[in-house]
């Protein structure tokens, strides 16, 4: 049976290579398009030649590259975290936002928006705090309820609904700033900077590595806490650490770019269609697929053929994601499992 092990490694390497090529192509395309169309050569030149055209250089290095890298990172984080959360809740319909985190983040951001004299940086900081505190509240309630993954999902819905109600309240009392809040809610990479990228990378990289490292144990966790414990896994601890890692990574992205739906739900399922439910495949490949989808979605947002300048990216990902999701639901029907 020796060949099987090597088969798996080779297969994973092959998939990752293929997706990397697609992702690189999407990233290069993304840098060339926009209100100023550039050739791939001009992009290349502006990167390596410091004496090239200053305007092009500032657009490419100061604006487009950090933006596309931030989009890739966010897509990667959402793809990996989506796979993790679906396994933890043993629910194929889960995504990283099921935890009540997105509503909490939105509430935090809205509060920062309407508070006078809050610095610009307060929006991501408050979003991060709001998201994580709602997540912790969800965990606390579900532990009290003690009903396993279903209890967790229901607690997440309760907390999320409550945070949304508060968000409505904040929006309604701040009519002149409502536009800014709504724009943030739809998500956008238009303001991404190198500094944002550094901060998010510093937070999410350890979390991503932790999740990928534990992919094999996560497979066993799919059997439920009781069976996993019996096979030698400290299942309660792993469950909590995986949830915190995925939420930390997602909320660090969300706090800068707003809420971007459906990538975390769809990317892992696309991968499962091809490779099955082994998380050693689903997590890394889900990450690459998420990144690829996100860059393509952002390309559509910025593309000159798009009649509406800077469409909210959340609406693009949902418009692509929902039909695909419905297709999956109908085609796979009962076998639409994790």
């Amino acid at each position, binding site marked *: *049976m*020796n060949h*099987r*092990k090597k088969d*798996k*490694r080779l297969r994973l390497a092959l998939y990752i290579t293929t997706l990397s090529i697609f992702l690189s192509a999407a990233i290069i395309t993304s840098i060339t398009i926009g209100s100023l169309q550039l050739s791939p050569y001009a992009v290349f030149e502006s990167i390596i030649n410091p004496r090239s055209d200053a305007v092009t250089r500032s657009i490419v290095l100061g604006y487009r590259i950090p933006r596309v890298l931030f989009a890739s990172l966010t897509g990667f984080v959402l793809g990996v975290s989506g796979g993790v959360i679906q396994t933890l809740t*043993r629910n194929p319909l889960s995504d990283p936002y099921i935890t009540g985190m997105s509503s909490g983040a939105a509430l935090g951001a809205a509060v920062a928006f309407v508070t006078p004299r809050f610095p610009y940086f307060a929006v991501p900081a408050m979003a991060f705090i709001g998201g994580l505190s709602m997540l912790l509240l969800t965990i606390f309630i579900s532990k009290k309820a003690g009903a396993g993954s279903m209890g967790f999902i229901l607690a997440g819905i309760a907390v999320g609904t409550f945070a949304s109600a508060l968000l409505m309240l904040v929006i309604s009392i701040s009519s002149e700033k409502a536009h800014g809040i709504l724009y943030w809610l739809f998500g956008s990479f238009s303001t991404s900077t190198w500094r944002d990228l550094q901060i998010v990378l510093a937070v999410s990289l350890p979390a991503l590595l932790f999740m990928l*490292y534990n*992919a*094999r*144990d996560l*497979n*066993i966790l*799919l*059997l*439920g806490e*009781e*069976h996993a*414990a*019996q*096979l*030698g*896994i*400290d*299942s309660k601890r792993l469950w909590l650490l995986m949830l915190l890692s995925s939420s930390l990574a997602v909320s660090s992205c969300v706090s800068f770019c707003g809420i971007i739906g459906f990538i975390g739900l769809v990317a892992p399922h696309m991968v499962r269609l091809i490779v*099955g*439910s*082994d998380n*050693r495949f689903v997590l890394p490949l889900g990450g690459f697929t998420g990144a690829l989808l996100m860059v393509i979605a952002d390309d559509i947002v910025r593309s000159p053929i798009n009649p509406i300048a800077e469409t909210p990216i959340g609406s693009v990902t949902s418009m692509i994601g929902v039909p695909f999701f419905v297709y999956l639901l109908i085609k796979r029907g009962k*076998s639409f*499992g*994790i």
Partner: protein
Amino acid sequence: MVFNLVVDGINVEFGSSRVLENVEIALRSGEVLAIIGPNGSGKTTLLKCISKAITPKSGEIIVYGRPIGEYSNSEYSKRVSAMLPQWPSGFSMKSYEIVLMGCRNQTKGIWWEGDRELQIVSTALEILNAIDLYDKDFETLSSGEQRKVLLAKSLAQRTGIILLDEPVAYLDMKHKLEVMTVLRALADMGKTILVTLHEIDLALKYCDKVVILSHGRVVAAGKPKQVITSELVSKVYGVEVAVKWDEETDYPLILPKKGQAVKGELSCLI
């Protein structure tokens, strides 16, 4: 006289109902214990207690000289394996992937399965005569085949103590005998095995000890041939039976003496 497993007077309550009452068991290496009793007598609960899935209200369970509460999950998984009921469903996994999960206790922190693990997996399936299930999707197997895969998973854990909840349920006669023969052989090589059974004849034929549970209490314990009598089985199961041993085939027979009458108003359902 060293016991691998001692269950010392455990009590379990679910709400206000007593599920297990003062249950005691002591087992050595090389012994197969059958736990028999009617539905709802507490057999599965007993196994769940020993597998650490349920913590008894009082009493103690000692494995290799240490109370089980002192073991971490990781340590305990190297001592005791369990095939518990209610295997979760709804996701696709190959049979060998499930058996492979049994090896988790030997390969903590290793990302890809090694040759040694795959060899254990193949062997576990082979001795159960189930190697042809290796690459099949677990969800598509019959109940009996799924049992065998789950049993192979427990064997792949390579523990000294093995707990099996109805390992022969859903299996046809040939496979029942096959599984019991494997368990007998493993015990003869030093394992300690606990099985819950509905088949009293298998307990008589293959097991060293038997515990008969009724309403959560041990009503009899000891060597199967001494304990399993016509009177006791009739009393515990509420069916008049005769327990006999057929000399020609050297196999026990449990013979119901008369059929059961239907209680209640059957015409309601016609």
